[in-house]
């Protein structure tokens, strides 16, 4: 009996593999995407990048300006993420099957989370741009909304995993709801949740550049401005500083994770 199960699984894997290949060819054909011609374009692009995206002395003079905007962007991402995390924690406690107060609250919180998660950050930026105009609040809100959706879902999973038996045990001792949440669910789930928050901060610093281009704020705005005026030396410098800051944040959060997990 086991053998047939194994054979069936092997067959399924083969079919899946073939399916992916067929799908790739199909989409390349539909979109008229040529593998060969796109590969041929790579050297040319490399040459262009090497000759145009060189940081020169003049561009370096802009560094203080860039750093200012970059720091503004990083702090905005961190603020958006941490404030979103607070709201997400509340939504997740309401939305988790193990800790929810009642079904209606649970459904509402899961709906809010799913709505904000399934609309991409870019779309949120454009929607919020219409109602709030071009200012830093718009960028902040775009990151905030997307983050709430993602973190709520991640937190719900964390809570469900963390809360398995201890919630039942504490209920049986006569503990109250908030005693259980604060002394069993949160202590067990907190490290995992902090880890998710760090992940989201990293992601948001990357998205902040894009959101900034769309909403005209922060480092993204600067990137856009110099890009449009064809000042590619500065564009290169901005790109490098963004990359460096993202790497720095990643290293930092890896450190923090090691300590808390």
């Amino acid at each position, binding site marked *: 009996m086991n053998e047939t199960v194994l054979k069936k699984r092997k067959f399924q894997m083969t079919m899946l593999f073939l399916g992916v290949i067929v799908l790739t060819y199909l989409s390349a054909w539909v979109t008229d995407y040529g593998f060969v011609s796109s590969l041929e374009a790579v050297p040319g692009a490399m040459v262009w990048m090497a000759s145009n995206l060189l940081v020169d002395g003049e561009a370096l003079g802009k560094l203080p300006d860039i750093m200012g905007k970059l720091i503004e962007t990083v702090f905005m991402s961190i603020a958006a993420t941490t404030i979103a995390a607070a709201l997400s924690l509340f939504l997740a406690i309401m939305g988790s099957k193990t800790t929810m107060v009642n079904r209606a609250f649970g459904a509402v919180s899961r709906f809010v989370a799913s709505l904000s998660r399934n609309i991409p950050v870019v779309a949120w930026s454009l929607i919020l741009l219409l109602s709030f105009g071009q200012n830093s609040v718009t960028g902040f809100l775009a990151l905030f909304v997307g983050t709430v959706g993602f973190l709520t879902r991640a937190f719900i999973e964390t809570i469900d995993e963390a809360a398995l038996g201890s919630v039942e045990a504490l209920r049986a001792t006569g*503990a109250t709801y908030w005693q259980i949440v604060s*002394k069993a669910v949160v202590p067990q789930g907190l490290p995992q949740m902090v880890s998710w928050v760090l992940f989201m901060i990293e992601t948001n610093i990357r998205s902040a550049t894009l959101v900034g281009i769309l909403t005209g704020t922060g480092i993204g705005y600067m990137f856009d401005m110099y890009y449009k005026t064809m000042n590619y030396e500065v564009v290169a410098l901005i790109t490098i500083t963004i990359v460096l800051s993202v790497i720095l944040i990643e290293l930092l959060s890896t450190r923090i994770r090691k300590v808390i997990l």
Partner: protein
Amino acid sequence: MPLLEVNGLTKSYQPGNPILKDVSFSVEAGEFVAVIGPSGAGKSTMLRCLNRMVDIAEGQVFFDGKDVGAQNKKGLRDVRKHIGMVFQHYNLVPRLTVIENVLHGRFGYKSTLQGVLGRFTEAEKQKAFELLEKLGIAEHAYKRCDQLSGGQQQRVGICRALIQDPKIILCDEPIASLDPNSSKVIMDHLKTISIEFGITCIVNLHQVDVAKDYANRVIGLKKGEVVFDGPSLLLSESFTDEIYGMKTAVETRELITV
């Protein structure tokens, strides 16, 4: 008046499929009762009806003179704080220390705020250490629970139940995940507790021989009905056959082949 009285308890999760059928029995203070029965007989469900961890549909449970089913939220809390519970999978908070987990047993006596702030009296902390000492795990007091063996974790679970000052302790297969040695340690502790502190114990068990060794009284459940209730000495071979029955042998074989 008996400490615990169960009258015509009937419970179903889905309509038309009763898990417990008209279960009645009463338990005097100080008794050590084993509940045995095949898997799915409703042992866990019955145990959880006693402190209303699952809702009581029909029938009544009286604990210490109180109708458990009729209690409001606050009344239920008062009932539960006098009932300790021990679980197959220990149900501790793994990342917290042993001593913190033991002190969790005091939440029933505290206001929400006191609990959230973790305010425990010196007397409570001292009691916690005494209990750990008694169960032989005092040296692990400041270790995280996920660093302990299963048998040690179960002893933490028992300490958490004992610090409640319970009148009764409900154990749902406390030794089902343990090796024979740890199982013996745990069962010996439960027996000591019941004799020394006079705490009533109701223990769900899979092993008939363990039930006979430790319990004064055995309740046999089969398909939600009480098919045996009496002194463990009277639990004869033929009765265990009746409880686990020829039918179960067939069912088991079916399970394996499916």
